[in-house]
């Protein structure tokens, strides 16, 4: 059991931890949920909703009972969500790959440090060695560029992977529920 003094101190500390205080900080945290929009449910978006309905009808068939259609809808929701996450991840990689001027922050820092070192050692008016000039002019290409993008966007990719994992899990269990319901209906129709 914590002492009264400790409880008071905890409460006072908790009151102090209320997130960012400056206007910029508050504005930045206010946009946290809007970074990629993947936490927004597909059913709250009219375009995705239409896709969900179309896919649910396709899964359940034309004369499906209401409960089967509802289960098919859950499958469709999870599938559309999964598609949305995969598309976002794909776009993230593709937009960086198709940018001809893409440069990683680590490499920019490395280049700056190299220029500074050359200027400090040889003076500002001495031409830089060939390999330095070549490195400064170089742009990442092909597989090296993709590996660099994976490294730069590791945090975003990890976040998207979490959404993908959840969507996959929801899809798996909703398909199991749908299959079970279809099987029960089949068994019932056999008994009839």
């Amino acid at each position, binding site marked *: 059991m914590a002492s009264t003094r400790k409880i008071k101190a905890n409460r006072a500390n908790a009151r102090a931890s209320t997130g960012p205080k400056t206007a910029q900080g508050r504005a930045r945290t206010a946009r946290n949920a809007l970074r990629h929009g993947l936490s927004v449910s597909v059913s709250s978006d009219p375009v995705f909703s239409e896709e969900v309905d179309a896919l649910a009808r*396709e*899964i359940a068939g034309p004369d499906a009972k209401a409960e089967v259609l509802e289960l098919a809808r859950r*499958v469709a929701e999870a*599938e559309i969500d*999964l*598609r949305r996450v*995969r*598309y976002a991840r*794909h776009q993230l*990689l*593709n937009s960086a*790959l*198709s940018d001809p001027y893409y440069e990683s922050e680590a490499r920019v820092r490395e280049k700056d440090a190299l220029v500074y070192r050359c200027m400090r050692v040889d003076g500002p008016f001495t*031409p830089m*060695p*060939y*390999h330095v000039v*070549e490195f400064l002019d170089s742009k990442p290409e*092909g*597989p*090296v560029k*993709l*590996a660099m993008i*994976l*490294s730069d966007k*590791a945090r975003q990719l990890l976040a998207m*992977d979490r959404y993908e994992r959840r969507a*996959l899990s929801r899809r*798996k269990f909703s*398909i*199991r529920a*749908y*299959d*079970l319901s*279809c*099987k029960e209906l*089949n068994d019932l129709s056999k008994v009839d």
Partner: protein
Amino acid sequence: MASKRSRSKPKTKSMTSAPARVQRLAFFGPPPLLEGEDAALYDDLVGRMCAAVKPVDIIDELYVAGVVSLEWEIMRWRRLKFSVLQASVHDALEGFLNKRLDYQAYAEDFAEALAEILVEILQESPQKDLAEEAKELAHQYARSQPDAVKRVRLRLRAAGLDADQILDRVKAQRAEGLVQEYARREPEAIRLVDELLASSGRTIHDLVLEALPRDLDEIERIDRLISIAETRRNISLREIDRRRTVLGEALRRNLQEVEEGEFEVIEPTPAEGQNPVQARRELRTGRSERTEIRGRRSSH
């Protein structure tokens, strides 16, 4: 009753042909291709996966679309891992060659590069046969003839250039070219690189070992992506299997209907002089020997 026109029955999805399936899988979104990846190869993979898994309904197709996309990712990340390793070994080899390359290996290249620069410099003076003179001067400089060295240095200095920098550039270019030739397994390049490695008491494996720690993070990251995609692909395949066990009976019934649908019973042609009504009666009682049943089993 004899005319069992089951072909008119709507076919179930399992009977669709592979290209139709490829088209149908497009319903699940555009192929996840990155810049430079081949869409035809992706379609080919879809076709082969459909032929192997034989999806029986839209949920199976949904799983197959996912499996194909994951399989594509696995192949992409494996290729990338190989390329990263290869690039890192090439970088290490280039660095090694930059330090160890003998002057004789690039003296000719240096003479040519110097000749080009001298032509540009000499163009400003009103002399004739510039190309010949520059070439001669450059070759003499490359052979370290004192008079030529003095003249070239003077001219380069006047133009704000440095012979050592030109030498560095040519050496780096030669090292780069040699690495590319080595990667193409050209015998001359292999011989030269092996000789240089042997003279320094190292092997290409030593260079790989030196390069590996630098790229270990990247390789680990790619390995993790491969592992995630493999796990997800295997889960999807297991789910397809599970569905077939759970829905086995229903699917078997579906397949039976499909197979029956693919058979067509053709009415017997009445023999000359035979009454068609009599022929039908014979068929119904199964007595006719002329009953011809043409059947075609599905290719799936």
